[in-house]
């Protein structure tokens, strides 16, 4: 996030796009509603009637995968009506002229047709977004889990840049990160192309720095992403997969393909429970959970916060770091750490953003990176005054229809998402009795008209088929989804991700296009 979570309560206009905030980030959702209570206006763009719809001033129920057309059209209106921040564009951005040409094509009328909304609503949304300096954008997987996810993010950044709605209190572009420490995992370099602190693995200076710090020669070839590693495992090129705290059998697209890959490779799984993935493993290592160890998580507002040990791990389970350190030692690389704090102190020496953060400082309250020195207070808002890279790049992006669509065989659009009561692949929440009472089983949301046409009643079992596979699932008839769209929460194994596409990845960040899958639906006899 470029801003802090608390600032959301004071925003005057909030544009929530592809974020089912009250369910995926419930306390941020509450903050959005607090802002609305105080008079803020909310614009929601989503392909389902999410709970925030009731709080929205403008609600844009867009066809899945059409974010770019919508956002481009909002920019079109802004430029057409002279609502842009000309000063900001002149002083702080580049690439504007070329961009204007592309934007011209995206009239509200054209976008309205692509997205399936009223062009007037697009105009209203554009005007509202530019009506106050305290306008902020929140987005989530509904934006990123598309083949053109990176481009959609660029289009949102364009929107913020042309209006200068960036780098101020309660105004910026705020991706809401899903899992508790997804921000931290990225910060720490659990990425195939980056070391800790986003330092590229193929930059000679950086390589040198880490070779010195770690005392070994390093490989400068960018590594494999999860989907790529999965493919290579299936092809037999990746021989060993070491999976810790992840459950790709449920979370990754195209379960059938994941299963083949896991069966082929030698798989080490380190987890709390015998997950669907662990069941296929060759070695399973019992790990301690968050309440059983000391350490830090970094939340979506870049705030590093302490995790403290409250209870002992069960049986012989160990903290993940202890297990990994032991493996390092046994492989002949000395990893001498007595505590998570020892590791953290090493992280500080190689990660400029974390250099000023200490466990002692964290004792009082979490600190937001960048925090370069011990007397630095941390950074609440990014890009203050002007974008961090000097000039913000405005780059035209075009809407393209997903290749999953437009087929007669699979005429419906399946979109996936989270629900309030379950977390990710349910490894933890499925063990909670009360949760299972409130959200006992998987389901598919089907529009009443579609249901009627297919003779499906609420509670019927239906068969859903995609190019990858088929599942049987209980129908929930609701107008939350449009007539040609169906929705399945992704939390349940052998559910939505049996159907989703694991081959088509975003060309930049390799995210799978989970939010749009062509499917067909039948009532089960």
């Amino acid at each position, binding site marked *: 996030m470029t801003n802090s979570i608390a600032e959301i309560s004071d925003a005057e206009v909030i544009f929530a796009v592809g974020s089912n905030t009250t369910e995926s980030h419930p306390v941020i959702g509450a903050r959005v509603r607090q802002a609305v209570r105080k008079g803020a206006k909310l614009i929601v763009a989503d392909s389902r009637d999410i709970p925030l719809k009731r709080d929205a001033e403008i609600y844009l129920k867009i066809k899945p995968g059409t974010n770019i057309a919508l956002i481009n059209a909002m920019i079109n209106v802004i430029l057409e009506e002279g609502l842009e921040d000309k000063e900001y564009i002149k002083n702080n951005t580049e690439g504007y002229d070329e961009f204007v040409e592309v934007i011209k094509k995206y009239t509200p009328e054209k976008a309205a047709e692509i997205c399936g909304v009223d062009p007037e609503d697009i105009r209203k949304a554009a005007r509202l977004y530019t009506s106050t300096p305290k306008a902020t954008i929140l987005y989530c997987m509904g934006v990123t889990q598309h083949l053109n996810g990176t481009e959609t993010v660029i289009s949102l950044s364009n929107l913020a840049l042309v209006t200068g709605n960036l780098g101020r209190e309660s105004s910026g572009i705020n991706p809401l990160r899903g899992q508790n420490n997804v921000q931290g*995992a990225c910060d720490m370099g659990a990425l195939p192309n980056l070391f800790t602190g986003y330092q590229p693995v193929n930059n000679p200076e950086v390589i040198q720095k880490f070779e010195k710090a770690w005392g070994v020669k390093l490989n400068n070839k960018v590594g494999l992403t999860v989907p790529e590693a999965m493919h290579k495992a299936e092809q037999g090129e990746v021989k060993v997969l070491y999976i810790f705290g992840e459950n790709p059998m449920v979370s990754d697209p195209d379960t059938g393909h994941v299963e083949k890959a896991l069966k082929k490779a030698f798989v080490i799984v380190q987890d709390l429970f015998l997950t669907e993935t662990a069941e296929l493993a*060759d070695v399973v290592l019992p790990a301690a959970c968050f309440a059983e160890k000391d350490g830090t998580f970094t939340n979506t507002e870049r705030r590093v916060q302490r995790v403290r040990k409250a209870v002992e791990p069960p049986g012989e389970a160990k903290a993940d770091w202890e297990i990994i350190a032991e493996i390092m030692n046994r492989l002949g690389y000395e990893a001498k750490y007595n505590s998570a704090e020892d590791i953290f102190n090493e992280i500080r020496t190689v990660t400029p953003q974390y250099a000023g953060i200490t466990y002692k400082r964290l004792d009082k309250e979490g600190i937001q990176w960048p925090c370069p020195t011990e007397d630095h207070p941390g950074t609440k808002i990014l890009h203050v005054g002007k974008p961090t890279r000097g000039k913000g790049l405005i780059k035209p992006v075009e809407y393209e229809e997903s290749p999953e669509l437009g087929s007669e065989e699979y005429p419906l659009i399946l979109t996936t998402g989270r629900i309030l009561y379950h977390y990710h692949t349910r490894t933890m929440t499925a063990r909670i009795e009360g949760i299972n009472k409130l959200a006992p089983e998987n389901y598919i949301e089907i529009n009443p008209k579609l249901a009627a046409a297919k003779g499906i009643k609420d509670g019927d079992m239906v068969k859903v088929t995609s190019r990858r596979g088929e599942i049987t699932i209980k129908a929930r008839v609701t107008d939350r989804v449009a007539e040609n769209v169906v929705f399945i929460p992704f939390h349940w194994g052998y559910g939505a991700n049996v159907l989703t596409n694991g081959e088509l990845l975003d060309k930049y960040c390799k995210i799978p296009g989970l939010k749009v899958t062509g499917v067909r639906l039948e009532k089960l006899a």
Partner: protein
Amino acid sequence: MINLKIDGRDVCVPEGTTILEAAETAGINIPTLTYDPRLGPCGDWDVCVVEVEGRLDFPKASSTVVEEGMVVRTETPAVVNVRKAILGRILANHPLDCLTCPKSGACKLQELCFKYDVKEATGVKTREERPIDDTNPFYYSDPNKCISCGKCVEVCAKLQCAKVLSFVEKGPHKYVSPPFGTAIAQSECVSCGNCVSVCPVGALMPKSKEVFRYWETEPVRTTCSYCGVGCQMDVLVKDNKIVDVRPADGPANGGLLCVKGKFAYGFVNHPDRLKKPLVRKNGKLEEVTWEEAFDVVVSKLKETKEQYGPDSIAAFSSARALNEENYLMAKLMRAVIGTNNIDHCARL
């Protein structure tokens, strides 16, 4: 800035500050049953009364704004008498079953009755018994214990913004419930438990599987392990078990939690947890010692690296694990194995 005297101490605070806040800055604690800085002044009948020189009444510290030259006394015999009377009246409609009430030890009413030596009710009971609503799987509402302070209603409406709870009046009874007295399970309640966390008495209570007393528990401040909001919370531990979770006033959550942070901690102690390493033998996963598991892992990694090169090994790190663990996993892959094949499910 406004200058005033509280209990003989000079206090200087900005205009608009309440007596309660001013006293707090001077380290003077004015007792209240229900004060919550996020919600503004306490209810009408709270015990936060004080004496202000020149005034005949006993103004409420939580709603009275300081004035220049004010002289405030917080604990005079007269003030204490007013507080006792208020507590006595509340007790008239509150069961005296502290012996078995699970809130005992964390109950504000109990704490203040103890402090002011109030043992008996004043006046007669004006309410009749009402059934407990236990339709929510995580908490129950016992209207007989409710002191009608309204905190739950406020939290639900102003902070959680769910507007599930309201006061329902039936004759002389005023109790808290979803509109028209419907059951909680039939309402729009999202089970965030924020109402439960602020209830000063045993009216809104978590349904706990454990039998414990609050004074037997040890709070440990930590970060919720579910979503990326990073709510701060205290897990309450008894005998190496988490028995309850209380929201903390973290920068992101401001004292709120959602259903997962508040109630979904039972996985920690679940019997399904893995307790020993497992290795596949003859097609089946079997329990082994750590020594054996490490041997298998390490020899496999060594062998594969020698035979097929480091890029034939890949790791999926974890968006749920610690920073320290993600760093170490990346270091293991890069510095020890010699590959950049490390990723995690940021994209999923």
